[in-house]
């Protein structure tokens, strides 16, 4: 091990390797799952360094766990066996923004929010917008196949990646995809690497698609008495000819958790649809009016257009604050990013509420209603074994319900460790077997994040 660390230092320099025990514990967890501390952490700054590290680890048969900002929720970046954590935080340069081609090249450790700000400075727009964007990285977003708030209109991270540079098993680099709008030569390996959770290689550079920044946007707020009414309204909007940029649902529990942010903006005991429309100024006004009329026709207690930038900011920051804020109600939660076909949202919401009631759990539903991706949270106290057991059962029932509605157990967080036991509920043996063989083809030594995704 000493020699391994010495060789790592020779690759990335003395301050690019951590092996002091107290430092390593910082890499034993993501925002949800706790694993074990790695044997060392390397912080490369270049693709060449990553190549050298991959070769070194191949020779030593030391597993490599790529890590971005560690904001994941399923343990994808968490070691389960003695491994090297490859922290890409120092590969954080935006290499170029090509305003003519509407493309940008960036290293994987660039923070998504900083990237968004940088392209917006030149009038461009990178739409993928995971709730963690201020902290999480482009590389992490790609590796987990992150979604986000604006997926209704703009799709997810995967839709905005044109090409990837990846260091693969023998330390070689490959370039997937093209810099063109179209391109069908060979298999679509870009899509394969997206969401592969570090099990197939290490993403060392991303080419991202951009669009001109929408000139205007507006936020609407619709209040409902019942969660299911809000769900029905979501479907009504989606079936209309207006596509909102984001459509987020928050139930009573979620709103109570972020009361500090909301203050006196809302009356008590309502659920809310938070809708953003964007485009040209006149287009935005038209869309906002259209949605308002539509929602008033489907049982909304009240529909408001946010008055000013400050109010808009308050509403959206409240939405982003929900996930951590729920911990103030109970020490632990299962937060499941289950996703159903949009016509089944109401069934999911009603079903989740029933499950929570049956198991006497506090529960919160919020999330990206506009794309069928809800965050169903069951809150529990880990010190209470009975409540923990009930939460476990409720979580499994939620997965069954989601699948019975034709949905998926993960819309955007990934499988990692936390959902690994359930993957076979969703995918058949032949499909799983093929994926395992793919993994072996890409990674014959089984050094890239071994054991993740597939049980």
């Amino acid at each position, binding site marked *: 091990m000493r020699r391994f660390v010495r060789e790592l230092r020779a690759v990335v320099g003395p301050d690019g390797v951590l092996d002091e025990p107290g430092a390593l514990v910082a890499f034993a967890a993501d925002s949800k799952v706790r694993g074990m501390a790695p044997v060392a*952490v390397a*912080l490369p700054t270049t693709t060449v360094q990553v190549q050298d590290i991959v070769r070194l680890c191949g020779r030593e048969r030391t597993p490599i766990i790529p890590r971005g900002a*560690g904001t994941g929720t399923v343990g994808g970046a968490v070691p389960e066996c003695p491994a090297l954590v490859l922290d890409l935080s120092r590969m954080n340069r935006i290499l170029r923004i090509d305003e003519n081609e509407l493309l940008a090249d960036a290293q994987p450790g660039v923070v998504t929010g900083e990237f968004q700000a940088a392209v917006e400075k030149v009038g461009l727009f990178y739409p993928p917008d995971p709730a*963690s964007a201020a902290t*999480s990285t482009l590389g992490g977003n790609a590796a987990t196949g992150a979604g986000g708030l604006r997926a209704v209109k703009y799709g997810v991270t995967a839709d905005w990646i044109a090409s990837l540079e990846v260091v693969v098993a023998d330390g070689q680099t490959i370039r997937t995809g093209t810099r063109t709008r179209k391109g069908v030569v060979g298999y679509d390996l870009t899509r394969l690497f997206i969401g592969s959770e570090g099990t197939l290689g290490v993403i060392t550079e991303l080419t991202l698609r951009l669009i001109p920044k929408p000139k205007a946007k507006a936020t609407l707020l619709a209040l409902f008495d019942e969660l299911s009414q809000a769900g029905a309204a979501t479907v009504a909007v989606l079936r209309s000819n207006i596509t909102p940029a984001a459509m987020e649902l928050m139930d009573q529990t979620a709103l109570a958790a972020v009361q500090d942010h909301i203050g006196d903006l809302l009356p008590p005991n309502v659920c809310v649809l938070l809708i953003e429309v964007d485009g040209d100024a006149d287009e935005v006004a038209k869309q906002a009016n259209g949605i308002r009329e539509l929602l008033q026709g489907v049982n909304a207690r009240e529909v408001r257009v946010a008055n000013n930038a400050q109010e808009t900011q308050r509403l959206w920051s409240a939405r982003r604050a929900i996930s*951590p804020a729920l911990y103030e109600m109970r020490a632990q939660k299962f937060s499941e990013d289950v996703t159903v076909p949009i016509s089944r949202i109401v069934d999911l919401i009603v079903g989740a509420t029933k499950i929570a009631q049956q198991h006497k759990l506090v529960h919160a539903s919020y999330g990206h209603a506009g794309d069928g991706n809800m965050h169903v949270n069951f809150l529990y106290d880990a010190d209470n074994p009975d409540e923990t057991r009930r939460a476990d059962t409720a979580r499994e029932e939620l997965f069954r319900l989601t699948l019975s509605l034709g949905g998926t157990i993960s819309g955007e967080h990934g499988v990692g460790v936390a959902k690994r036991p359930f993957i076979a509920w969703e995918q058949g043996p032949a499909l799983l077997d093929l994926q395992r063989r793919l993994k072996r083809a890409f990674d014959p030594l089984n050094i890239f994040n071994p054991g993740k995704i597939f049980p």
Partner: protein
Amino acid sequence: MTDWAAELRRCVRCGACREVCPVFDLTRLETDVARGRLARIEQCDQMDRFVTADRDALSRCLQCGRCVEVCQSNVRVPDIVRDAKARSGGATAIESSVAGALGDPARLRRLTKRARVFLAWLARATPDDAGLRLRFALPYFKAGRYVPRIPRRSYLARVAPRAAAGQERVALFLGCGAGHLFDGVGDAIDAILTTMQLVAAVPEQACCGLPAWGMGADREARIAAANWLEAFVPGDYDAILCACASCAAHLQRNLPEVLAGDRRADQAARIADNVHDFFAWLRKRNWRADLGGQRIAVHLPCHARHDVRDGEALIPLLIESGATVIELPDALDQACCGMGGAFGVRHAELSRAIGEKKVQAMLRERPDVIVTSCTGCLLQLRDLVERSGARVRVCHAAELLAG
């Protein structure tokens, strides 16, 4: 007693601290950000053991509190780190003995005198009145670090003890920086008080104990606090004015905890309301200077932003006095100067790189003057401005307001 284990568990590991931590910004190390530090502290607590590497790692936190501002759970990171430092014996022998000397009036006087002789031998004067540069590298000071000229007769040596005069009984607590290094600060405050027909009492005094407390040298902090309470007896004054925002923060917020278990803890709690940041006090009395449109860059000390009662009063006070206060982008406006007490000494290069970002942003706006209200920040800002080659006045806000 605070249950630190419970406080640690409140961290949900969302990683938002990575957005704002000035140390992480430079090192990109998870171990340098609140989430990583808390993981370390939790492990040390579980094993009931802190080793040298842990103490070093803890010393790499500025305790600036930026992470708390973005923390959804409001985890009190600076307090957790401070307490872990104390439990781990985080202060080195030199640090705690310096901190100890600061807390005792007679020892502090002797220390300043020796430092003056020592620095005269070691340093050469810079061309203007800014101060001295060290000629040689010392273990703690990198060669070229600016240090202020230590005055032959400091403000405290000239003035203390002095009794109060005027309609109100106000007392002045200088703090080490204004008392012994930047001797114009006390004179400036006196001049401002003169406009109100007041003379502040200046009892014999030493350090409030914040440097010791911040580095986890609790014994030295307790002694300093006890000495402070002897100098400023509750009930003796209508108001105790602090020249330095960081001292004010310590006296208002920490003193009862410093003296926990001591008979003087009650006394400390009672006096907290009586302690005022000088600028908050001025503003409350609607005092104004005439700053006639000067462009001013203000560095509001982290302690003022987080812990001092009305700690942000300096900015409206300057604006109401006719100055134009330069607005920096939020992230820079709220940034720490990088000094952080012992941090600036132990991690001189990191400290300077952190401050550099803010100072460069200030200088780009071409201010007439840069002010702050903490003498630790002042030390840092002068060093950075001096090194940048810019000829911009950097002073304590009282010196600017006194004209």
